[in-house]
């Protein structure tokens, strides 16, 4: 049945996250924007136990599943069970946190995207080895390093290499990664790790690209630059240099074999993690969008302006039209996001829906926040309010995890049934 009702449990948790966002993020939001490179330690320490619990839960589930697979002679017939709501919950948490502050949200410790990659394709041994750290001790981070100076959208063209040293049975990484979110926290400020994309065979192009886990403190890896940015300043974005950086053979994620040139199966595997992460980026965008719309309406209300829904269009003021357009774009993007998210929970392929919601959300939050600055005028532009900051924060959502164009390109190829060659 077509249904838009959230399960009660998610409603409750969502309400709780919204409370945290209000109480622990908003008060420090402006400060962290003005003081780039500072970290919200109180908030991090507050969130860490929650993350530990979540990660512990997930690890336990992975163990259980592995044990079940090991025990069963042949795989048990899949029972028809209720679809999971894990991604739905995650999306609501991210939305609420980003309503608080999108930059601070990105500072939350835990596996984040790097962890997701391991959860998606890692063996149970790898999950134990790399993810256990998020269930104990001090806060730790993980990061994901794909982008290079030469190429961001064109991920197939990355230059970093991984060479197998057969004598020591180690991978040797060389290359430079840029724009690594939480790279500093993951590799230098905590015992975390970074998942690095590198090619084991450049002549094989896409098929040669694999991902590797490099743990904090591994010799040969260093942070060479911390970027200063337009927005999400609380989140560190760094360059990582790999020079003869040696890691154990077992740190490769997925199948080490290079399929013959022309096949892209391995690459498709890594790209699949985007299907899961893009709706979550969209959810983050929607948090900023909601914050902005709520604030604009609140300010207008204080000023005696009520948004009158239901009137014939010719009676609407330009201002009302603008606000309604913001709300309609918000709703459009949010519903597309919920659809992509619920498909993930139902384990249905969602590549097109995932790119649709990401493209729409990135665009919508950009338009909404930019319009808000215009509507609020001098106040909108002032650093006294957070709207100008939200506009700066918002823009990242149309850039990372596939720019708006790249996600539109993916949608276009899918609806047309065109290959990369047929639609460049």
């Amino acid at each position, binding site marked *: *049945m*077509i249904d*838009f009702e959230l399960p009660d449990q998610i409603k409750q948790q969502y309400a709780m996250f919204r409370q945290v966002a209000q109480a622990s993020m908003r008060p420090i939001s402006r400060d962290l924007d003005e003081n780039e490179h500072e970290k919200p330690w109180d908030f991090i320490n507050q969130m860490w136990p929650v993350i530990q619990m979540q990660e512990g839960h997930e690890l336990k589930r992975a163990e259980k599943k592995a044990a079940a697979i090991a025990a069963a002679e042949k795989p048990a017939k899949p029972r028809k069970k209720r679809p999971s709501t894990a991604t739905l919950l995650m999306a609501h948490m991210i939305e609420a946190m980003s309503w608080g502050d999108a930059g601070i949200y990105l500072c939350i410790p835990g596996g984040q995207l790097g962890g997701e990659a391991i959860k998606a394709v890692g063996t149970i041994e790898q999950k134990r080895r790399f993810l256990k750290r998020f269930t104990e001790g001090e806060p730790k981070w993980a990061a994901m390093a794909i982008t290079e100076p030469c190429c961001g959208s064109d991920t197939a063209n990355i230059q970093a290499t991984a060479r197998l040293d057969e004598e020591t049975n180690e991978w040797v990484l060389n290359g430079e990664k840029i724009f690594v979110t939480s790279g500093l926290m993951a590799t230098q400020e905590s015992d975390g790790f970074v998942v690095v994309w590198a090619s084991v065979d450049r002549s094989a192009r896409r098929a040669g690209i694999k991902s590797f886990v490099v743990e904090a403190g591994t010799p040969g890896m260093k942070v060479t630059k911390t970027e200063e940015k337009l927005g999400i300043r609380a989140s560190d974005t760094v360059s990582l240099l790999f020079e003869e950086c040696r890691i154990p053979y077992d740190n490769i994620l997925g199948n080490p074999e290079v399929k013959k040139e022309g096949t892209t199966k391995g690459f498709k595997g890594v790209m699949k993690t985007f299907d899961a992460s893009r709706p979550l980026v969209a959810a983050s965008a929607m948090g900023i969008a909601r914050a902005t719309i709520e604030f604009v309406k609140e300010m207008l209300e204080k000023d005696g302006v009520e948004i009158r829904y*239901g009137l*014939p269009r010719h009676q609407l003021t330009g201002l009302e039209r603008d606000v*309604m357009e913001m*709300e309609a774009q918000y709703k459009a993007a949010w519903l597309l996001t919920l659809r992509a998210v619920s498909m993930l929970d139902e384990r249905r392929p969602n590549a097109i829906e995932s790119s649709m919601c990401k*493209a729409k959300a990135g665009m919508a939050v950009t338009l909404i926040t930019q319009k808000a600055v215009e509507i609020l005028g001098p106040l909108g532009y002032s650093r006294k309010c957070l709207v100008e900051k939200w506009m700066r924060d918002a823009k990242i959502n149309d850039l990372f995890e596939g720019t708006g164009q790249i996600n539109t390109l993916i949608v*276009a190829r899918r609806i*047309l049934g065109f290959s990369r060659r047929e639609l460049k």
Partner: protein
Amino acid sequence: MISFEPTEEQQMLIGAVRRFADKEIRPVYRDFEEEGEIPHSFAQKGWELGLTAAGIPEEYEGFAEERSVVTGALYAEELAWGDLAIAMHLLAPGLFAYPVLLCGTTEQKESYLPHFCEDEFKSATAALIEPTIRFDPAALKTTAVLDGDEYVLNGNKMYVPLAATADLILVYAAEDGATQGFLVKGGTQGLEVGDREKHMGIKALATYELSLNNCRIPRAGKLGGESGCDLGQLMTLSRIATSAMAVGVARASYEYALAYAKEREAFGEPIASRQAVAFMLADMAVDIDAARLMVWEAAWRVDQGKDAAKEAYLAKMFADEVVLRVTDGGVQVLGGYGYIREFPVELWLRNGRGFAAFDGLAMV
């Protein structure tokens, strides 16, 4: 629990309506458009899908176990994908039936609703729009004045679908400034059906001007009796139906343009191989899906008994914009051919333009 899957029953119904749209509507709609006429026999065929009766509960001889606006939105999209004029013709009886179902007194429901569950197409309609710019359904110029045991209606209407053949017309008029509905039988004295109207699109749909000159109806003909009707609620349902149809029209144009762009070659390759064309198509796909989800959410809220006024209003605002942009894009993708009436996209642009201009012309 959040889900985007129609029920099995709904899927069966959509399947049937989609087949009808594809196999019955599509082969003839262009001829109907050029001729400006939907033959009665065709409307009868469409009536046999039982869509109007599907929204009427069993106690009034319909076959709705549970009335669902979501279901209405689903089939409205499919019909309009087939053709908007035909969709509006087939849904016109609902303009009378559903307000009676939602706001009518028990007596009104019992006396009118069973007619909509019979085998014969029930020609009924509503008269809301008035010949004025800056039209406002909440501030009608048509008046209703109580005179003894009768209401006296005066005023002018336009865009009244099927008025010439309608047995029943729900006339909206202002009583003491508030919009109320009045159930008028075709042929009542003082009810004059004017000229058949000519418009930019939906040419097959017969709409008329209507004038009310001291048209008298019994006091009991006021929709909802003494307490009247809830115009806001009716507008919400109308907005859901209309937006669903906008999605259907947009989808028709998008699908056609998509297939065309893969076939048509320019500069040695399919035009879809250029981002300038492919991105237009991708944007269309995204916005069509988004508009549909907004319609569904509003419809779902109605079914849940939640207030859906704002959702339906925003859904319509969004869908109106999307259908225009998408149908314009459809013409654009076809290039010169898009402008030629041998191809359907120009018709969809003309039809698509209508949505933002109207409110209240369909109901589910």
